[in-house]
């Protein structure tokens, strides 16, 4: 069963087309990564799903119910963490978490305490004194302490330090193990790679690619920097090697993920002195996507 279904959803603000025929399905029990650059329409899509924005056209449902008409009903089973968490400066962290919990259903005392400890939050501190990351943690504790069946997380880690990001990843893994569904939006590819079963890439209000990470492998190229004992003259003509740039002591280039094995094989013949690899960034992925579609058009 699909938890989220969006069919040809458009949303316009005046002349600006924020969503342009977005199709999105999230299946029950999966962690779905929703990635795209800033301004691509991720937050707009999530706000449509929450019934805060009314879609100009198209249909959107959660648990089979209309996101606009049945918003309150749906929200009883949904936890939402916005990317920019604004809280009330005069309330304490504990008060905010209790307020959120009681607006949704039950307060789980034990879970609340445990999450506060894991995210290292002091419930007696006023929100006024909190940094962006700490406010985000408050929203995350409220979300993970709830009974929600679907988690809508809009760039929830943008203010967290690496340690807290780890805690967040554990929490996502835990709710997944309980069979719950997560929609995680992000503009950081590596984060999505670690957590998600399937990934959808949004750009200019449209889903341009969607599938498991393996299915998207054709879009991911590693960036490699190598130094070898003997020079490699023919590197640029190898299968799966792109954008070769000579450096003072070696080369940097991009390598297709599916050709990696062969490339490594050939490289080792030249005696590798040093090799560095960097995972593909979202930008690389987009570049690749456009190259592919442009090539496709040429053919």
């Amino acid at each position: 069963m699909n938890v989220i279904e969006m069919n040809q959803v458009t949303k316009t603000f005046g002349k600006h087309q924020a969503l342009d025929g977005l199709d999105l399905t999230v299946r029950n029990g999966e962690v779905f990564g929703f990635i795209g650059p800033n301004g691509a329409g991720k937050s707009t899509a999530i706000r449509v799903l929450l019934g805060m924005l009314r879609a100009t056209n198209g249909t959107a449902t959660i648990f089979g119910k209309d996101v606009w008409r049945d918003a309150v009903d749906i929200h009883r089973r949904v936890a939402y963490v916005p990317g920019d968490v604004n809280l009330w400066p005069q309330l304490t962290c504990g008060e905010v978490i209790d307020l959120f919990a009681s607006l949704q259903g039950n307060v789980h005392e034990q879970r609340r305490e445990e999450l506060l400890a894991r995210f290292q939050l002091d419930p007696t501190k006023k929100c006024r004194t909190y940094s962006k990351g700490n406010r985000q943690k408050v929203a995350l504790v409220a979300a993970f302490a709830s009974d929600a069946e679907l988690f809508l997380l809009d760039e929830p880690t943008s203010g967290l330090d690496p340690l807290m990001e780890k805690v967040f990843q554990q929490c996502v893994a835990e709710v997944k193990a309980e069979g719950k569904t997560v929609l995680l939006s992000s503009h950081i590819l590596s984060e999505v790679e670690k957590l998600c079963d399937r990934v959808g890439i949004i750009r200019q209000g449209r889903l341009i690619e969607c599938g498991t990470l393996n299915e998207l492998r054709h879009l991911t190229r590693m960036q490699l920097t190598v130094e070898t004992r003997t020079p490699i003259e023919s590197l640029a003509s190898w299968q799966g090697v792109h954008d070769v740039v000579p450096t003072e002591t070696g080369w940097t280039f991009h390598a297709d993920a599916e050709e990696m094995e062969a490339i490594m094989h050939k490289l080792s013949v030249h005696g590798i002195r040093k090799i560095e690899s960097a995972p593909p960034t979202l930008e690389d992925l987009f570049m690749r996507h456009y190259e592919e579609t442009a090539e496709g058009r040429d053919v």
Partner: protein
Amino acid sequence: MKGAPFAGVLRLSRFMIRQDRMRYMWWLVGITVMTLVVPPAFNELYPTEQDRNLMAETMKNPAMEAMVGPGDLANYTLGAMVSHQMLLMTAIAVAIMNILLMVRHTRAEEEEGQAELLRSLPIARHSQLTASILTLFGVNLLLALLIGVGLYSLSFDSMGLSGSVIYGASLGVVGLFFAGVTAVCSQLSESSRGAVGLSFTVMIGCYVLRSVTEWIPPFGWLTQVQPYSDNNWLPVVGLVITSLVWFALAIILQGKRDIGSGFLPSRSGRAHASILLRHPIGLAWRLQRTAFISWSVGMLVLGLSYGSVLGDLDSFFQDNDMLAAMIVADENSSLTTQFLPMLMAVLAFISTIPALLSIHKVVGEERKSRVDHLLGRAVSRNKLLVSYLVLALCTGFLMLSFSALGLWLAGTTSMEDPFTFFTVWQASIVHFPAVVVMIAISTCLIGIAQKATGFIWLYLFYGFLTLYLGGLFQFPGWMEKLSPFGFVSKLPIEDMNWLHAGGLVAVAVVLLLFGIHRFTNRDIEG
């Protein structure tokens, strides 16, 4: 000044002045203008000694004395009148200026980490505090000069040089006193908000205690100065000395603490939400609690001050053609009774402000994306908006009631033949349907075009102008009928017009339903 405990003070002062010169300028200009417009206005309103003596008579009551302090009522010259009615109020403005500026230069800088940056430079521990004191000393000196010279240059007979100088000087030293108080509070509290709060508490405490005994500095001492009559310098000197004591105390305290810390532990709040806070309306109330309490006190005090003059109105009116033109002439009731609807109308306009602020809170919450937390959970838009609406309606009702209560309380002490509470309350609460219409219009604006919600203030001001000044300027009658306040019955001199009141309520209900409907059908901005 190498190695001295105050190295770099002058450069820091210059830096502060450079940074905040516009802020200083606006404060100084504001307070000076506020002072200088009053004597010509008084001169216009009370041109003869007889007029002023009448005014002096109305001042002879405990409520007025508690508010503005004692004055030279026996010899109520223009100068004595200005210093009696204005000095204490202006001193409060000066105190607020000093509190805000001092916290800005001391605790706020420390809180934001700028102080740490500066102290890593070859600058001594006490330099920043000393520089702040020096800067504010300069600001207060300038203020004293501006006001002293300004008042003298108005060249009224009863406002001579020595009186003007001491008027300015006494304001300057009150400023200095609160610069000192705030310098100490900034050492005690760990946050700038806490320091401001603590300093304001001291200020309000001083003001309230002053009405009990005149020997409470600085406001009690200030009212002993009596510029333009006694010209008593002793309290001014006393305030300079106490300010120096505060400054010394602040410097000593600063020497005993680490940067970023305070002497008062920062209070931690509740770890759990109370039962009340677990509902949208509880949250809405919690967000407005402080504002509600402040407005309630304000309306009560305003009612008290209006009520305290009721006793002397009849004699006062006979000599003031301008005011007489503003009220309805009627042979059957006393001028005081006839004046009551107008007082109540003014109080009703002011009572509308907190009610509108209350409903507008939901717009502020939307702009800050904080309604998302509620709407993203199981709270419907209806429930959200209605929570704020209920509070706004209660606020309007209670503010009208509080102002009536204040007016009645003071009226019973000052009048020979006082109104009953019910009469006063009726005259006030009769405005409630109009207040509800204003709230309903705001709700519509929130539903249709939240960017245009500010329009309601213009409309409120229009209603005030047509009603308050309409009689004076002889505006045509239909102009006041364009505002809901134009349909309010003038109790107790008119009969209650139930048709009008019912009409206002009906209009309000329609607008409210429409506004709520629109709100549930539009995009939530964030």
